[in-house]
């Protein structure tokens, strides 16, 4: 690797870099990611027969490629502080849109020498913003998808299992949300004005309560025969859940650990709100299929409660399609977050997330494409990785 260090004299410090040098230096910058990827893959291959569905991933080439791309971005998000070459918000010099490989003007001692992937219209480093954007996306997208799943599962299970009026009412509500053009909904829900009306907080108060209810019912239905265990698990769920709930939904955590920026809460709630009905429909469909199986009838004959059958008999057997859809949905949520950023909704203008960076870069797109193309490719590769992973998982889970 010595030829890549500027000290070797191979790269003149006052000259712009060639494309080969840019890729070389970028590969060097990503070293923690490579180390982490190698460790992950070596360990996974070594123990793949003991790792269940995760281990089976490594039998399918498509899934391996998808998993590698996804983990690349996960590790990038994790090690963003080490990888990035500049503060993503710092404005470096007065030249607008410096080209990839350009020299950073009047660099101080110990500072990085080049704009690896160029700079944007405020001379901020595109490479560092892309790396930091990965962190933003990979915090919100999986979290929002998980919430959407918990909401969709908690409502979809009884709708499919009990049916009747409950099903009609819940399905009508789900179809209502699904008939709403997504962008219109975003424009109505993610505005600064709406925060004053308290609608996002009210929505959050309802949506965030559902996961707590999910876990409380989960433990109650399993352990209601042994009150000691039940009290312990349900108690822990309620204490932990309500603590986090007070912080996230109302920003009123007494200890000040959990909190969410009101802008972010707004975005988060809208994305959960858009995704949950689709999950609801999938869960409902699977449950209607599974509930006629013999083991469900056996559970009913044993006198199990309805919630026990739904959560401990049906749900584990529905996990295959749900895991596949979970992967796909993280990708879809990433696209949705990008759309929000693209329209400048719910994010601060200096935020390095990919959608708003693309939006900022598109104004001069035909003259200097790099500020918009870099985050665009990043977003595309992450979603592609997730889609490939989902495809591989589907193939592997069909083999059983």
């Amino acid at each position, binding site marked *: 690797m010595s030829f890549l260090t500027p000290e070797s004299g191979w790269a003149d410090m006052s000259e712009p870099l060639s494309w080969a040098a840019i890729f070389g230096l970028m590969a060097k910058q990503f070293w923690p990611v490579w180390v982490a990827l190698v460790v992950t893959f070596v360990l996974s291959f070594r123990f793949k027969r003991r790792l269940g569905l995760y281990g089976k991933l490594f039998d399918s080439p*498509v899934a391996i490629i998808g998993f590698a791309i996804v983990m690349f971005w996960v590790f990038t998000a994790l090690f963003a502080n080490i990888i990035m070459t500049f503060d993503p918000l710092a404005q470096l010099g007065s030249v607008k849109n410096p080209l990839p490989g350009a020299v950073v003007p009047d660099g101080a001692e110990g500072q990085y020498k080049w704009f690896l992937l160029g700079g944007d219209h405020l001379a901020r480093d595109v490479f560092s913003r892309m790396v930091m954007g990965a962190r933003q996306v990979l915090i919100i997208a999986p979290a929002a998808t998980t919430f959407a799943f918990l909401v969709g599962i908690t409502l979809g299970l009884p709708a499919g299992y009990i049916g009747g009026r409950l099903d009609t009412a819940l399905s*009508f509500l789900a*179809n*209502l949300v699904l*008939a*709403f*053009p*997504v*962008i*219109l909904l975003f*424009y*109505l*829900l993610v505005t600064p*004005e*709406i925060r*004053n*009306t308290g*609608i996002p907080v009210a929505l959050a108060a309802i949506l965030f309560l559902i996961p707590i209810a999910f876990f409380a019912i989960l433990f109650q239905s399993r352990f209601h025969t042994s009150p000691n265990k039940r009290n312990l698990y349900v108690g822990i769920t309620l204490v932990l859940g309500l603590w986090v709930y007070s912080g996230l939904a109302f920003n009123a955590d007494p200890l000040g650990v959990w909190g969410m920026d009101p802008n972010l809460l707004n975005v988060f709630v809208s994305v959960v709100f858009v995704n949950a009905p689709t999950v609801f429909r999938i869960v409902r469909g699977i449950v209607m299929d599974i509930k006629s199986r013999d083991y469900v009838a056996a559970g009913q004959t044993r006198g199990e409660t309805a919630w026990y059958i739904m959560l401990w008999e049906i749900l584990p057997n529905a996990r295959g399609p749900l895991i596949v859809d979970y992967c796909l949905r993280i*990708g879809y949520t990433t*696209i949705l977050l*990008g*759309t929000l950023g*693209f*329209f400048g909704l719910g994010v601060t203008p200096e935020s390095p997330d990919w*959608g708003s960076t*693309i*939006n900022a*870069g*598109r104004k001069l*797109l*035909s*003259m*200097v*494409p790099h500020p*918009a*193309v870099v985050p*665009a*490719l990043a*977003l*595309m590769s992450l*979603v*592609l990785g*997730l*889609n*490939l992973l989902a*495809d591989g998982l589907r193939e592997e889970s069909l083999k059983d």
Partner: protein
Amino acid sequence: MLAFVIRRLGVMLVTALVLTFVVFFLTNLPPNLEKLARSEGSVRMTDAAVASWLEEHGHTGSVFYRYAEWLGVAPGWVNTDEKGVTRGLCIGQRDDPALAPKFCGIFQGNWGFSTVFKKTVLYSLGKSMAATGWLMLAVMVVMVPIALVIGVLAGMREGSRTDRVLSTFSIATSATPEYVSGVILVALLASPATGLSPVLASWGWIGGKTLFMGTATSAMDHITFWNFALPVATIALYGVGYIARMTRASMTEVMTQQYIRTARLKGVSFRQVVLRHALRNAMIAPFTVIMLQFPYLLNGVVITETLFNYKGFGWMLVTAAGNNDIEMLLGASVVAVIFVLVTQLISDIGYVFLNPRIRLG
């Protein structure tokens, strides 16, 4: 069948009413109305002046009643201020208040006046929807045949090399949202600085600076291949993957059925089996998917029109939403909601028509 359609129409009507009410409620929130008062009246209005402006222009009172007024099922508001000027929902600038009709909502054809475009909402809607109609037509003409061909080719021999290549292509396109593919296409094909255009220009193969045009504004008056290809490709690319994958799934399922095997064993050529026996049954599922793809197309249209500055429905929706143009936004949402619901209805009815195995009790 008739009962099914009527029941579906009833549910659709209720859905449309609920959704438009939600939009009405969200666009007429107090902060939005206050902003409207300040932009229509004067920026330096006091809070009391804002309140009285809202009172004079019929923006106070129960939101349900105002929604009914807007729909045209409740009598429109009429106010007379201290100068003796009578204003009302149904009274124009010069009309005689005595002659004005009592009801005037969207049912009566009064969709309001756009504060941004300074035209009636119906006029602006009509113009922008015509523009978007051309875009959607072009997208459908490009997207559907390509997607069906890819899906059938991939699905007729599951697991073959063709299948692998085409499936990977479909996955890749469905991972490319419009704001990504648009940016990449412009950088590759419509930038004088990067991509193909400088190379082609230096060879003298193209007259102008770029191969394609990076904006579609000129397509508003005159559609040409050079100003319309990129927006159409941008929208079509995202949809192709999804439809192709659904077609492939449907095709692979059909190809494993007994009657296909029977036909093969009778000695019918593979080509004939695919074209004559498999294709018709494999097309049922994609039809539903294509119809349900329209709402997503609406999303793509909004992004693409913004990106390429094509002044159609999507661009108008964004402009109206960004500038607090309440009546325009309401009009646009009515159109969008009805559009989505009608495509869902057609998809349901079409599915029943195409698939003789489904009987409605």
